[in-house]
């Protein structure tokens, strides 16, 4: 047995290892990663690193000295697992056995089945993706972005900054409508349009045209857009295939309890980060996956404590898990910041400023505050965050 095996060498994997050490676990830890890089910070990949040049070395997380003795097995993904035999199989043929397993494999971009050539269509999740995209964002390049979520909008802003022509095609009626709602979404659209972005909203792409390389994109209203590069940013899929065949529910990441222990797992097993569908005492309703940067740290901390307990034979802390989802986004000179789960709201009110300038909006569900979003008003959000933590 080789102690703890963590599959996924991203932020969640790293924080889980650090937390297990901080909680007193001294045994072996192996971290398996599909990418050849040590854990690095992804958000800059659509923002500053995409505009100034992608250097993974500058994006690596600082690792605490307590994890200096971790064995990193990088560049080979896990392709299978047997949770009863307690083994994980990697693509390079390695079979690792474990006492306790952590799933920290995150998500990958969803791909749409679109007819035509695929060369020139890029997704953005990894540093290697960002490098590929950066090479194509040259002044004058015609960029077509599929999807108007945060990543699509951030790439649009960066591409404009780099002198590209940008078209965004999305089925939604406003950019970032699910997290922001229509009013703030529309306010952000106006800012993008002011910088020259062309939106095709309520629309979908019907095909890619070109010989080997995509040169044009066709839209369902008959529009044809010239394209030097297409960026597909239309949602995500959880990386759970390596867990197939173990009888777990893999329909939407991995369902965990308050201790981050995977429900129905036949061995000590935990999930963290984007992949973990977890309860949250501060927000009503079912367990949810939250694809925000601060959640791997929150869930990883708890999972590490649970691991240290389980492996020393102590009971796990089963207190309710509570964490404040927090998100930020940089677009042009604008800073968006959100706390809570604005996407749950049935009623949105602008409570400070106005959407065409700096503003704050409250997001309520059944009268209860469930989220807050600020545009260019960061410091003023603190009291709302406090309110979100205090009321439930």
């Amino acid at each position, binding site marked *: 047995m080789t102690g703890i095996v963590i599959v996924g060498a991203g932020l969640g994997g790293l*924080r889980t290892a650090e937390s297990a050490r901080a909680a007193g676990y001294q045994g072996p830890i192996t971290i398996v990663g599909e990418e050849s890089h040590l854990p690095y*910070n992804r958000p800059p990949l659509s923002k500053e690193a995409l505009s100034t040049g992608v250097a993974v070395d500058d994006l690596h997380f600082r690792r605490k000295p307590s994890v200096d003795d971790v064995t990193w097995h990088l560049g080979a993904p896990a392709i299978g697992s047997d949770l009863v035999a307690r083994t994980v199989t990697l693509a390079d043929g390695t079979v690792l056995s474990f006492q306790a397993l952590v799933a920290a494999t995150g998500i990958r971009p969803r791909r749409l089945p679109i007819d035509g050539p695929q060369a020139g269509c890029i997704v953005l999740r990894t540093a290697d993706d960002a490098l590929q995209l950066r090479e194509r964002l040259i002044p004058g390049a015609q960029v077509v972005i599929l999807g108007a979520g945060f990543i699509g909008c951030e790439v649009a802003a960066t591409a404009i900054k780099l002198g590209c022509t940008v078209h965004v095609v999305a089925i939604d009626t406003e950019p970032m409508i699910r997290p922001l709602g229509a009013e703030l979404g529309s306010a952000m659209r106006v800012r993008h349009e002011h910088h020259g972005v062309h939106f095709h909203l309520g629309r979908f792409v019907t095909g890619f045209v070109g010989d080997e390389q995509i040169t044009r994109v066709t839209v369902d209203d008959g529009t044809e857009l010239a394209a030097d590069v297409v960026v597909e940013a239309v949602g995500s899929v959880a990386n759970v295939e390596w867990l197939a065949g173990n009888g777990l529910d893999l329909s939407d990441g991995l369902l965990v309890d308050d201790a981050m222990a995977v429900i129905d797992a036949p061995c000590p097993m935990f999930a963290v980060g984007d992949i973990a569908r977890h309860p949250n005492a501060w927000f009503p309703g079912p367990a949810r996956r939250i694809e925000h*940067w601060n959640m791997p*740290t929150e869930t990883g901390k708890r999972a590490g404590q649970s691991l240290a307990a389980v492996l020393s034979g102590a009971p796990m802390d089963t207190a309710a898990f509570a964490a404040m989802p927090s998100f930020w986004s940089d677009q042009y000179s604008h*800073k968006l*910041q959100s706390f809570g789960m604005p996407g749950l709201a049935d009623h949105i009110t602008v409570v400070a400023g106005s959407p065409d300038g700096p503003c704050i909006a409250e997001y309520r569900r059944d009268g209860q505050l469930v989220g807050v979003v600020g545009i260019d008003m*960061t410091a003023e959000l*603190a009291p709302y965050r406090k309110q979100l933590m205090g009321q439930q």
Partner: protein
Amino acid sequence: MKVTVDMDKCQHYGQCCFEAPDVFELDADGKLQYVADVAEERRADVESAADVCPMQAIVVE
């Protein structure tokens, strides 16, 4: 313990302020102000602040 924030990296999001409000603060202009020399007993919270900084701008020595 010595705390340094790389002000070229810092985007003034104030995430650190929630973890260690006595060390990190956004001023009236929304700019980060912080204490550079911090008592050792505050290490856990200051390290949490460094962990949650989206720009990874905080170095704790």
